[in-house]
């Protein structure tokens, strides 16, 4: 008996906890409302199953508790009941899966007009790169990294020359414009995670990963690392500033491009940079400066 009461109280308590707990999703700041709705649909279907099944459990425990003279009913199986339960379960599952897959369909289709922005992770900080006026990110890789070329851009790739670099600073995004965030790691796995955007994706050394979003709300949000990356994992923080396109353009104009950094680098640093890029054996048809 007490266990039946406990089960019923836990069901009521869980529902009350759901209704009154102060912890729920952060206010959304991106286009991924479809993820939130898929979560809501899943929650409603699963919540109904949770309440229904457990109340049935509590009821059965009371109703069929042992009493003197009481005997259980012998019924090895009931195929029609089992078939009906299977059918309705499948309907419930399909009801959850449909919005889930629909949202995923959007998640994997990056709009053509999305601006490409790169986020680079390393133990334990974030850096960012914008493609500059040509709209194309130059080639980059770990092998090009030098003290003056922290993000490892290929100095021989002309597309990289106008790339705008933000090393260990804030990521700025214009509100209302879709962005494809391409992700690159210099060392181990990381994960670019902004709770308010809902979206996240791992950074994997050796490959480039991506996801996309449209920021819908201006403001400053925390960037966390959501894939264990060592001792400083919990301290790998960044900030993303979502602002109006005008403010974004203003901010971007103040950042330095890779070309400017190259121009200001001392000759010794340039030599290291070029050696890393194998400039002596790779034919370069364009001038470096």
């Amino acid at each position, binding site marked *: 008996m007490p*266990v039946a009461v*406990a089960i019923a109280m*836990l069901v009521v308590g*869980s529902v009350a*906890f759901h209704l009154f707990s102060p*912890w*729920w*999703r*952060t206010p959304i700041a991106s286009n*991924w409302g479809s*993820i939130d709705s898929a*979560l809501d649909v*899943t929650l409603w279907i699963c919540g109904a*199953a949770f309440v229904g099944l*457990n109340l*049935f459990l509590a009821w*059965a*425990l009371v109703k*069929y508790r*042992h009493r003197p003279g*009481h005997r*259980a*009913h*012998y*019924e*090895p*199986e009931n195929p029609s009941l*089992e078939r009906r339960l*299977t059918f309705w*379960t499948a309907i419930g*599952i399909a009801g*959850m*899966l449909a919005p*889930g*897959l629909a*949202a*995923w369909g959007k*998640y994997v289709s990056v709009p053509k007009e999305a601006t490409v922005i790169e986020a680079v992770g390393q133990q*334990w900080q974030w850096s960012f790169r914008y493609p500059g006026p040509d709209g194309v990110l130059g080639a980059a*890789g*770990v092998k090009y990294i030098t003290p003056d070329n922290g993000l490892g851009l290929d100095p021989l790739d002309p597309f990289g020359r106008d790339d705008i670099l933000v090393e260990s600073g804030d990521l700025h995004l214009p509100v209302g414009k879709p962005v494809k965030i391409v992700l690159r790691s210099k060392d*181990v*796995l990381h*994960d670019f*995670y902004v709770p308010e955007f*809902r*979206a996240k994706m*791992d950074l*994997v*050394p050796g*490959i480039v990963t991506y996801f996309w979003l449209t920021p819908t709300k201006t403001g400053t949000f925390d960037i966390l690392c*959501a*894939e*264990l*990356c*060592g*001792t400083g*994992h*919990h*301290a790998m923080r960044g900030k993303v500033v979502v602002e109006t396109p005008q403010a974004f353009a203003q901010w971007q104009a103040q950042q330095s491009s890779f070309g400017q950094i190259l121009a200001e680098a001392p000759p010794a640093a340039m030599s290291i940079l070029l050696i890393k890029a194998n400039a002596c054996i790779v034919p370069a048809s364009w001038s470096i400066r």
Partner: protein
Amino acid sequence: MATTLADDLRPLHHPHSWVTKYVWSQDHKVIAIQYSCTAIGIGLVALVLSALMRLQLGFPGAFPAIQPDNYLQFVSMHGMIMVVYLLTALLLGGFGNYLIPLMIGARDMVFPFVNMLSFWFYLLSVIVLVAGFFVPGGPTGAGWTLYPPQAISEGTPGHQWGIVTMLVSLAIFVAAFTMGGLNYVTTVLQARTRGMTLMRMPLSVWGIFTASVMGLLAFPALFVAAIMMLFDHLAGTSFFMPTMQSMGAITPTQGGSPLLFQHLFWFFGHPEVYIVALPAFGIVSDLISVHARRNIFGYRMMVWAIVIIGALSFLVWAHHMYVSGMNPYFGFFFATSTLIIAIPTAIKVYNWLLTLWRGDIHLRVPMLFAIAFIFTFIHGGLSGLFLGNVSVDVPLSDTFFVVAHFHMVMGVSPVLVIFGAIYHWYPKIFGRMWNETLGKLHFWITFLGVYAIFLPMHYLGILGVPRRYYALGETAFIPQSVHLANAWISIAALVVFCAQGLFFFNMIWSLFRGPRADPNPWGAASLEWLTPDTPPAHGNWGPHLPVVYRWAYDYSVPGAARDFIPQTEPQVEQRA
């Protein structure tokens, strides 16, 4: 149905001394106890680690001895020990060993010597694992998933030697499991007694059997992943290591794929969830049926559900990798396969409930744990649908929602079954009865306590609180109330931690002072309760093997004198 073991007792390797009886024993029951005690012993280490983790999370800064490196080491060792060295070893090496021969009417496993070796390899793997605590740099802190490159790179605690002991230990464990698993599978297929058809076996045996087959197919993936990572770490290969930066220098490694490891790991790791769950499903079915005095509802459906879950579990592994950077189009397939697996799982839940329905429910301690399992498993199973549903997983992955989900579904739920099973079979194993009051107290604190721990964690996860964080620090979206919740969760965890003392006291005290147990105290119909001796002697069955005439679930049969009919009782028609 043919039996390869005759009634003849001579082929058994009879012990001649204390050492061959209790140490180098080939008796499946002794090996089962050896396995169980080792598993529970190392499980206690993992329990202490979890308490240390909760101290840090609940009261950050209050324990300066716990540094970020220590915290990650606690997380990693806790996870790996609980999943592999406690749950897998206890459910298969412990319960599998004890129950299979007794439930199918065999004298022992078909390969008793290999069975003994399996335990000693397992013990060796545990010793190597524990050695990790004493090597320079300490045990690995790469998370139980051991993802490269960080597992073997600078910046991760234990990347020098801790990871080596971990990988070597896992490789030894796989060898131990393979010896045990082959034994369980072969014994079930070859050594069933006369009349024990596959469809008359108790569901415990079905669960353990299917899990063993799955283990034999899944553990090799872990084995090769461990060996490949050892090569990467010690021999300079690049299976999983791309060109990367480490300590400001470019590594000499080139072209390896961290995602390859994740695929190998989860190809093992997901079936592993069911390797733990299926024996628990089977055992809990038997507990519910016996204590509700009612046949398990839809037995054939239950068997097929176990087999289908086992098969499907090999097709869902990448749902652990939706945001890993693998080709995102895989998400469609893996979300669908993952949600399909919910159907046979739901059928099992329905049938447990329908077994209680119209039953004659005796709320003894093992039954209380079985009922608590139904509750926690419904909760944990449903939260899995959120994470399996690909796009819903995106905001939730690597948050406390995941921690809450897997603890409910494969931490708390199987552990509740294990407690129930220990209380249930203890009188047979040791011939003594435990104390009921202590058992009930242990049940109530554990059941309510774990729910108090894990329910709020789901909500912290939905808020976005990330897992594997040493400290949350100042984060704009995390309100002060989260820190308060963490403190309360830690207090609940410490209460549950202490309550386990009741269990251990009860078990050990009853071993010496408990009243003599009835050979069949619950009135169960399955074979293990029908042994001539309690505890069963070596060889289990005396001069003649039992002969089985019916399934294991003839409870409350109309017209029968008692409310159960043992499997060895001939059918009425045959008698006439």
